[in-house]
């Protein structure tokens, strides 16, 4: 690995962390689309800033672009508040309008500006190491690294300082307001951080990947944990992992770095979406199957409890009577036997004491919904878990 390669991976990783932090809160606030809007509509801010300073890394660009980001949010909310269109429509109206202003500004001045729409959309991460920051004649590293590093430092400081406020206003806006934590201040604070991060990451990874880096790691983490701090940590981890593995994928395929990182983000989300232990598609399918079996078991036990007559409890008769197919009847019979809930004597099924207690308890729970009593059964049966 040469130093440029290390620098690219370092920049990509810092961008990933800086995006994961506001991204986590955007996902929890169901505002993922806002990051899409911000990433596009900051373009006119960048272009105007560039015209003024002639420098893509000037702090003025960040200020102007962040301002455009906040203006986007304000405009979306203003249009939405009129009640004439819904929020997603308002977003769809505002950001293309601002983005197109940026595109026209670039096109009109294309001759004397080295800023093109392609670079804006997918970034130029590969070129980042060539733009160095020189302080009194000494090369102290790529400019992009410094910019995103400073933004990340500010983001982390704000996160640590206002974690409690962010959490309460994201979970329960009404409570936050009544406790004196103005949801509006926190909302616009988060929007400002999102905008600044977007601008900082923009140069390196472009408008489309910024959205992916904000939303995909957070969405992936959401499927894996029920703890906000762990969700933040996991989102950062997935971001970094995708950044580095994406870089090497691009290296291998000789393809765009931004595109490869986004591909990795998508693949990781897909894997977690399928295989996550609790919320994953496969886990949910397994749980539903298990619940179906357990409902059958309960139906079967209840039938036994309700009928003392020998003819109602004959193995073959049960199958005809409850109207189950052979396989299902066999599964349920075996499950009940394995759990010592029934005994079979000469093909006549009877409830054991354990089976009898279990049935009464389960029925009692289903009828009265007494939660506390059922806790010990939750460990063994999916049926009673939510």
């Amino acid at each position: 690995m040469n130093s440029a390669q290390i620098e690219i991976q370092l920049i990509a990783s810092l961008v990933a962390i800086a995006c994961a932090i506001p991204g986590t809160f955007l996902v929890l606030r169901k505002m993922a689309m806002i990051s899409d809007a911000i990433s596009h509509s900051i373009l006119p801010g960048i272009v105007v800033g560039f015209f003024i300073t002639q420098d893509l890394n000037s702090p003025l660009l960040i200020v102007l672009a962040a301002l455009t980001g906040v203006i986007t949010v304000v405009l979306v909310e203003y249009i939405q508040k009129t009640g004439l269109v819904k929020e997603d429509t308002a977003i769809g109206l505002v950001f293309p309008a601002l983005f197109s202003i940026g595109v026209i500004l670039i096109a009109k001045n294309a001759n004397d500006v080295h800023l093109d729409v392609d670079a804006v959309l997918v970034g130029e991460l590969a070129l980042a190491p060539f733009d160095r920051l020189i302080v009194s004649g000494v090369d102290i590293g790529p400019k992009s690294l410094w910019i995103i590093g400073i933004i990340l430092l500010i983001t982390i400081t704000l996160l640590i300082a206002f974690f409690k406020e962010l959490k309460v206003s994201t979970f329960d806006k009404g409570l936050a307001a009544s406790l004196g934590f103005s949801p509006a201040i926190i909302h616009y604070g988060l929007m400002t951080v999102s905008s600044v991060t977007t601008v900082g990451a923009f140069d390196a990874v472009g408008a489309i990947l910024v959205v992916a880096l904000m939303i995909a790691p957070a969405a992936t983490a959401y499927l894996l944990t029920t703890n906000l701090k762990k969700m933040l940590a996991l989102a950062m981890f997935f971001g970094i992992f995708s950044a580095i593995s994406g870089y090497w994928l691009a290296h291998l395929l000789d393809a765009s770095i931004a595109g490869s990182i986004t591909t990795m983000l998508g693949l990781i989300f897909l894997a977690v979406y399928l295989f996550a232990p609790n919320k994953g598609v496969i886990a949910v399918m397994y749980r539903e199957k298990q619940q179906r079996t357990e409902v059958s078991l309960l139906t079967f036990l209840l039938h036994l409890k309700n009928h003392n007559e020998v003819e109602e409890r004959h193995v073959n008769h049960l199958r005809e009577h409850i109207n189950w197919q052979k396989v299902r009847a066999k599964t349920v019979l075996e499950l009940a036997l394995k759990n010592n809930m029934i005994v079979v004597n000469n093909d006549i099924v009877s409830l054991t004491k354990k089976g009898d207690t279990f049935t009464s308890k389960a029925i009692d729970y289903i009828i009265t919904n007494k939660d506390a009593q059922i806790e010990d059964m939750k460990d063994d049966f999916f049926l009673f878990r939510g």
Partner: protein
Amino acid sequence: MSGNKSKTTSSSGVIAVKIDDLTVAYNYKPVLWDIDLEIPEGVLMAIVGPNGAGKSTLIKSILGILKPIAGSVTIYGKPYSKQRKLVAYVPQKGSVDWDFPTTALDVVTMGTYGSLGWIKRPGQKQKKAALEALEKVGMLPFKGRQISQLSGGQQQRIFLARALVQNASIYFMDEPFQGVDATTEIAIINILKELRKAGKTVIVVHHDLQTVPEYFDWVTFLNVKKIATGPVKDIFNDDNLTKTYGINYKVSIQE
């Protein structure tokens, strides 16, 4: 029941919440119109009225969550923003996302954030208070449970515990009995009665008219305008019910 009714007026005679000429509108359509209301300290009060009567809006305006277009609200003589620490709020259960990645204990701890102010983080003292509140509502065994894994009744108890931990003087609750089982309803009302016994003022948006005389000692009838307010035994009658719900109020009772 007689116990509830014996205490119909506040012993101290102090006004806990005073509302003057309050008008609230959504898009220029008044939801609350010129409300004047005095809530005495130490009452357990139901706010009743048909759907769209502005019951939740009234609470939200008192708490500064909604901005009124006219009028003022004072808590013990001062504006709400100066008296936040005296007030606890239990929003409707449906107003939050129960899939939020957090535990029962954490949600209850949020009740202590108000006393902490900005930036400062909850410590051992806050955690202890939260655990005590969980104990009070019978939810201690569930403290580490992710909130989506709780039943509706349990979620409501968590909300109640979160309000208890604020150790306020005035409690506002928006339909705490909505979607809870009978056991939880009894558990909640017992806690509310304990709060009243401790001299707290409790204001509850309530839907079930039949339980008003049993649960509450004070009632406010609301339907965009204030219809009546006072002791349940004096004003909870057909006359006021008809004025609030219209001629067919008996239908609403049966629902």
